[in-house]
């Protein structure tokens, strides 16, 4: 799994590549920890090349969403592949997180 984080205007842009699973979820959580604080909570996550997530990844997306919302911001996940989208649909995460 590869993650690129950058700032654009007042928004944090995240690009995910590869699988989020039990082998790298702890690292992923550390990588996104800085996004859970600060005055510019908005996050835009490009999921085009995110090939997989297990409940380990969902746990971290939920943490991000809660943190962003608590600070009055908005988190968007875009271009999920159909299999990943199905995981979000089945678990009801599609109703919690804005997916476009």
């Amino acid at each position, binding site marked *: 799994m590869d993650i690129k984080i950058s700032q654009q205007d007042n928004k944090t842009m995240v690009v995910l590549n590869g699988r989020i*699973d*039990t*082998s790298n979820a702890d690292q992923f959580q550390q990588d996104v920890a800085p996004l859970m604080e600060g005055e510019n909570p908005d996050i835009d996550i490009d999921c085009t090349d995110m090939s*997989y997530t*297990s*409940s*380990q990844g*969902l*746990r971290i997306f*939920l943490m991000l*969403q*809660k943190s962003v*919302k608590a600070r009055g911001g908005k988190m968007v996940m875009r271009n999920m592949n159909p*299999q990943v989208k199905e*995981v979000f649909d*089945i*678990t*009801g995460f599609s*109703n*919690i*997180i804005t997916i476009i």
Partner: protein
Amino acid sequence: MKKRFNPIKDKSSEIIEFVMSSPDIPDDDVLKFKLRLSIEEAVENVVRYAYDGGIGWLETNIDFNQDTLLLTIQLRDAGVPFNPLEKEDPDVTLSAEDRNIGGLGIYLCKKMMDNIEYRYEDGNNVLTMTKKVQSNSNE
């Protein structure tokens, strides 16, 4: 194909990759996604919770029946007796504030596989997951 891993502490990835590399796993990306997810969640459940400190074994058994086209993935451990299927399904309609991540793993297994059965046998937890597939990669 049967294999026993011992000890299993921090070995989730190795166990998952071993199962996924089985010749019985069909060469179909959509199906492999569902199988990988089910295997990861089930294996994690054992690695994290079955043994105190993760000191113990986990046996994987993969079988593909050419006649019924049923792929069977079985996990066996000698840890604390625990039936993950007894756990109530999480409420997937709750808002983010009210959501707790617990219980999603086995719920995903149930949704991704056709059938999951649990039994306690000879001092072992035995979880058997099956899915009907069209063919396997050997054909």
